[in-house]
């Protein structure tokens, strides 16, 4: 009996002596901290759609996005480069968790405004949490020419999204994006006002400053007045200090949720691919 007690004490004494190593004591202490996972994606967009990332408090970002015509439109249109849809926007972080943005697209003359709010953050360490969740809401108004002016309410579209993302490793991030889009005006009485879609997106980092992104939205119900396809997009992010360049290939020509999710008509596999880019500058 005594022998066992003695051994137990000896054991504790020695393990205690061993833990006298100063760095080991600090390591032990460091494990008690929790920290928030950052930079799940490089930019606020995966390709066309929003990523979990926000602009931080008091940061203003100016984004210019171009989507050219279809690559398979031939040499006469220089593979689509002759025509483009341009969206420029100002996006601002009110707090680290809340950002707002205003944009204007040349295609369909769309004005869009959005809010994005971080609800939950992925954390590692003592109190870890496996993923991040943000809420996204936008209103889009389509402008019409003078002879065809419509009341404001007839021009509106609403989008709500939950962005659920996880940075699986420093090089791999994944996101799923349940989406609901509401169209105030419908083409016929058979048409639905509400549209459900589920987006999946991801990023693979090739180096510290270059990443490849992919994104796909599955539409659960589609417009009956238009033969639409599910949008797919691939992009390369290149970061240089305050700029992020995104080069994009997509079957969608638009950069606003209600359009690229529910109104994309291009068949990616048949070459209906739009080349495009986003350039952002953060101030």
């Amino acid at each position, binding site marked *: 009996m005594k022998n066992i007690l003695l051994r137990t*004490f000896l054991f504790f004494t020695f393990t205690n002596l061993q833990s006298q190593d100063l760095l080991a004591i*600090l390591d032990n202490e460091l494990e008690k*901290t929790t920290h928030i996972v950052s930079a799940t994606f490089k930019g606020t967009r995966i390709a066309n759609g929003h990523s979990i990332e926000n602009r931080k408090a008091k940061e203003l970002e100016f984004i210019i996005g171009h989507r050219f015509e279809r690559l398979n439109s031939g040499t006469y249109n220089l593979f689509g480069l002759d025509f483009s849809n341009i969206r420029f926007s100002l996006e601002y972080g009110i707090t680290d968790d809340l950002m707002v943005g205003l944009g204007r697209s040349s295609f369909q003359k769309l004005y869009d405004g959005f809010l994005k709010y971080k609800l939950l953050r992925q954390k590692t360490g003592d109190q870890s949490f496996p993923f991040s969740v943000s809420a996204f809401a936008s209103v889009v108004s389509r402008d019409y020419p003078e002879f065809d002016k419509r009341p404001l309410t007839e021009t509106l579209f609403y989008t709500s999204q939950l962005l659920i993302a996880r940075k699986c490793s*420093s090089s791999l991030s994944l996101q799923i994006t349940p989406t609901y889009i509401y169209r105030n005006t419908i083409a016929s009485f058979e048409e639905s006002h509400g549209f459900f879609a589920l987006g999946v997106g991801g990023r693979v980092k090739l180096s*510290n400053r270059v990443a490849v992104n992919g994104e796909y939205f599955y539409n659960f119900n589609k417009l009956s007045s238009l033969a639409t396809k599910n949008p797919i997009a691939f992009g390369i992010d290149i970061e240089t200090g305050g700029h992020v360049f995104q080069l994009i290939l997509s079957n969608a020509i638009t950069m606003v949720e209600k359009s690229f999710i529910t109104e994309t008509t291009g068949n990616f596999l048949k070459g209906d691919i739009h080349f495009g880019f986003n350039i952002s500058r953060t101030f």
Partner: protein
Amino acid sequence: MRKFFSILLFVYFISLNGQDKVFTRKGNIKFFSETIVEDIKAENNAVLSIINTSNGEMAIAMQMNQFVFPKKLMQEHFNENYIESEKYPKSTFKGIIAGFSKVKKYKATETYVEGTMTIHGVARDICIPTTLTKKDGSITMSGKFIIKLKDYQIKIPRIVIKNIAEEIEVSYNFIHLPHN
């Protein structure tokens, strides 16, 4: 046998008590990079530091992603591109304070700490000047030194070479209290 047993108990409790160590988890480290284009500064207020007062050994450890920058984008780039804080989450130092036992209480004394610093996964021997003040129950250490990014294999791409200094000034301030 009894005697031996009680001696063991005694040793055990002494080492448990750890009265011979002073410690802080709120150590402050700042760094500063100055170029013609821009100044970059950041601060970490959660640096861990511990001194064994019986022999003057000390150790420092910090999470690199705890550095706070005035510009959040810089902070992101620091973690993602330069210090790679997911790959190398912490920086450490382990060394010995020169002439520790000779430092008199309540007298700010100039000395240095010699040891190994590990940043960005690269370990290097370094000698850090320090001003050390012993008081009853606390030991304060502060000072500044220069780090060359090249020494720790932190690469600066050509496009921002004018924005980031090759030599970074690091200053620190630790107030150690008894560790229990």
